[in-house]
């Protein structure tokens, strides 16, 4: 009987430890999640889950249509993505692609997926000013 009690106590302690551990892990995971800046305007051209999964396909398709065929619709245009997703904040300034608070970088840094779109493409709307003076790019 004593033997059983001791074991039960051990078990309870273990379970307790387990709960504590998993709790602290979840709170850490929450800290690590990307902080995604909110976009200008109400609705994206696609649903969020569709965009998260397929944005690279959309812009790949559009880039060929635009550059090679001269089709200039704005729905899946990278320029339009930037217009909304890196629109000037309250201070009237925008982030650089090299900074974590740029919409694209916020997720891509988290996912460790390096993109080279902005080696060539503008990372901000034409008229917007950068918040920092550091040189952009990777």
């Amino acid at each position, binding site marked *: 009987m004593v033997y059983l009690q001791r074991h039960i106590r051990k078990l309870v302690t273990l379970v307790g430890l387990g709960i504590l551990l998993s709790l602290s892990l979840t709170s850490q995971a929450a800290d690590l999640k990307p902080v995604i800046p909110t976009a200008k305007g109400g609705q994206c051209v696609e649903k969020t889950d569709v965009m998260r999964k397929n944005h690279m396909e959309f812009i790949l398709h559009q*880039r060929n249509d635009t550059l*090679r065929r*001269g089709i*200039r619709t704005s729905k899946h245009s990278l*320029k339009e993505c*930037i217009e909304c997703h890196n629109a000037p904040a309250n201070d009237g300034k925008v982030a650089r692609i090299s900074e974590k608070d740029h919409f694209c970088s916020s997720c891509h840094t988290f996912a460790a997926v390096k993109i080279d779109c902005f*080696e*060539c*493409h*503008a990372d901000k709307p034409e008229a917007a000013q950068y918040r920092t003076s550091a040189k952009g790019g990777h």
Partner: protein
Amino acid sequence: MKQDTDMNRRRFLGQAAAAAGLAVAPGVMLYEVQARPAGEAATSKQRWGMLIDTTKCEVGCNDCVTACKTENGWGASETKSSTEQQAQWIRKVKLTDKQTGHVQSLPLMCQHCETPPCVDVCPTGASMKRADGIVLVDKHICIGCRYCMMACPYKARSFIHESLSGQKAHAPRGLGTVESCTLCVHRVDKDGTPACVESCNAKGHKAMYFGDLNDPNSEISKRLKEFGGQQIRADLGLNTGVRYQGL
């Protein structure tokens, strides 16, 4: 939303153009070419070209070059490259006849060849010609081998040697890729005129004309028909889209 606005604008312009049709003789009407809607691909119905009247192009004038730099963002952006390495989409060339001393000046840029050698040699398909004759580099797939630079008889192409920032939204350009005059394709697709031509005319020189070589009623075609227009290195048989008058 933006797309709809564009479409409406184009439709409006289309109607305005139709309304502005001009009766030149009984039964003969001249119409402006209607702008292509944003969702439609460029076709071979058009072939865009340029005509440069060298008799009006002044030695020392650089207005077209400056306009191109400002429009497309090349030049000042390459801070680490040497002068030879820096991009040059359009340059002024001075020709002196050694016999007579006669001096001529002209702008030289990608000649938008009908049979472009740069496209022939490109191993990836990055160097390409659009259906309407505009020759471009698809930087998404350019590997920077620079074969096209070697192949071009006009030295029209540049390679980017350094990381760039602050590019124009309508003119993406960057490290490790080749670039050249796009005939301001972003403007042409909106029924506009290349920056160099616009500036040359705005400054009153009137040495450059842009238009559709396939349309016999366009100003450029009429001028070419009346005055003729030479190709630089016509012997190469490239049927260039850029023509010169008065050479």
